[in-house]
């Protein structure tokens, strides 16, 4: 077996939070490795455009991510992406992460693992994924030009993406589990005034139906219990966000929503273990807030290392 690789800090997740932490720590001449189970860059590489990151006007998501990644490696931060983590020990003084790329050891670990879109977990959802079901309007909207589709959800993303999808689809039906939306007033107004958008409120999504591809969505009315199939060839699902915290549930405190709870300095309560970005319990999830978290976590970690 090869020897463990020792660092001052290990960062889990190479999104904006992890990369920011990497930039600060490596610039402070600490040896840092960022391990990512996917591709370095995080959610911005799943985003078409980011228009609200100060200083970078109308950047494509992947461009912003690549700049951050490049900046981190320039300062000497190592990034290993597409790793498979087989075990973690985060409570000891020297923390250990065992991966298919070797074992990494450090006194500090920063968790910056972000999150993933929530899925419905119902029959047909996996089967028709990319055969009618999508989680990305900007990527897949044009496959539904002239088609009837549904959007599942009632928050800002669902309503904004429904409006965006009317550029392609001939009709968009919003399916929502409650009788009211949880979105900003402006998003609701924009959706309501769009002639291509219809609403089915207070319903439960039972299953996705079809053969080789999606043909309909079976729903039931929450009040009457009556079910029916809405015939569509496309379904876009925007029902929120699931933090990537499962790996850490035995080590840190999780909120009801499975977010990692931390204090203002990003301390998790476990010595040497910090958290940053979307995986943390907080109100607003943006690139700017992730970058701020990453900075704070790195500075707290630095203080911890130099103590």
């Amino acid at each position, binding site marked *: 077996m090869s020897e463990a690789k020792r660092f001052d800090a290990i960062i889990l997740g190479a999104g904006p939070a992890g990369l920011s932490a990497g930039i600060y720590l490596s610039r402070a001449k600490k040896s840092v490795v960022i391990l990512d189970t*996917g*591709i*370095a*860059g995080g959610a911005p*590489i*799943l*985003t*078409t455009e980011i228009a609200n990151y100060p200083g970078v006007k109308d950047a*494509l*998501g*992947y461009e912003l991510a690549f700049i951050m990644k490049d900046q981190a490696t320039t300062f000497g931060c190592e990034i290993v*992406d*597409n790793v*498979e983590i087989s075990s973690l020990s985060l409570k000891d003084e020297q923390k250990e992460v065992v991966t298919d790329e070797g074992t990494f050891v450090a006194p500090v670990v920063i968790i910056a693992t972000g999150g993933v879109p929530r899925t419905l977990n119902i029959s047909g959802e996996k089967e028709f*994924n*990319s*055969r*009618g079901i*999508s989680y*990305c309007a*900007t*990527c*897949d909207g044009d*496959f*539904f030009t002239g088609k009837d589709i549904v959007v599942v959800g009632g928050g800002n993303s669902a309503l904004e993406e429904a409006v965006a999808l009317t550029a392609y689809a001939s009709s968009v039906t919003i399916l929502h589990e409650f009788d009211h939306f949880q979105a900003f007033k402006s998003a609701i107004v924009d959706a309501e005034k769009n002639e291509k958008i219809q609403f089915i409120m207070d319903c439960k999504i039972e299953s996705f139906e079809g053969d*080789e*591809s999606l043909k309909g969505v079976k729903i039931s009315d929450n009040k009457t219990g009556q079910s029916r199939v809405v015939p569509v060839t*496309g379904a876009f699902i925007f029902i929120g966000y699931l933090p990537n915290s499962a790996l850490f549930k035995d080590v840190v405190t999780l909120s009801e929503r499975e977010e990692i709870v931390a204090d203002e300095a990003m301390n998790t309560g476990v010595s040497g273990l910090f958290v940053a970005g979307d995986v943390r319990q907080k109100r607003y999830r943006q690139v700017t807030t992730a970058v701020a978290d990453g900075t704070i976590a790195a500075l707290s970690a630095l203080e911890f290392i130099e103590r």
Partner: protein
Amino acid sequence: MLRTNLKHLNSDEELQSFIKENENVMICCGRMGPMCIPVYGAMEQLEKNEEYSAVKFADLDFDVPAANFIRLHPACRMFTGLPFTIYFKNGEVTKATSSIQTKKQVSGVLDEVFK
């Protein structure tokens, strides 16, 4: 052109000869955008690590005319998620996948179809 470190296929002639001249081929046909970049990243890493040295990797811009061969291929006709990733053995399609794939999923397919 896609901003990747993979071989880029730009024309129909290039695409056809790439498929014809190589026994094991993986082509990812997508855009420089969400869902696609992780697949290019996985391919770049697999190519660099030489884990699958018997496989030739390439990308193809979804919006160039040469991409019609893949966009309209029967193996992809039900696909509604970018990118379209297609695997050829001795010129024949052995597998096609739609949308984002992790490195593990890509390796799984490579093992299934080429090993």
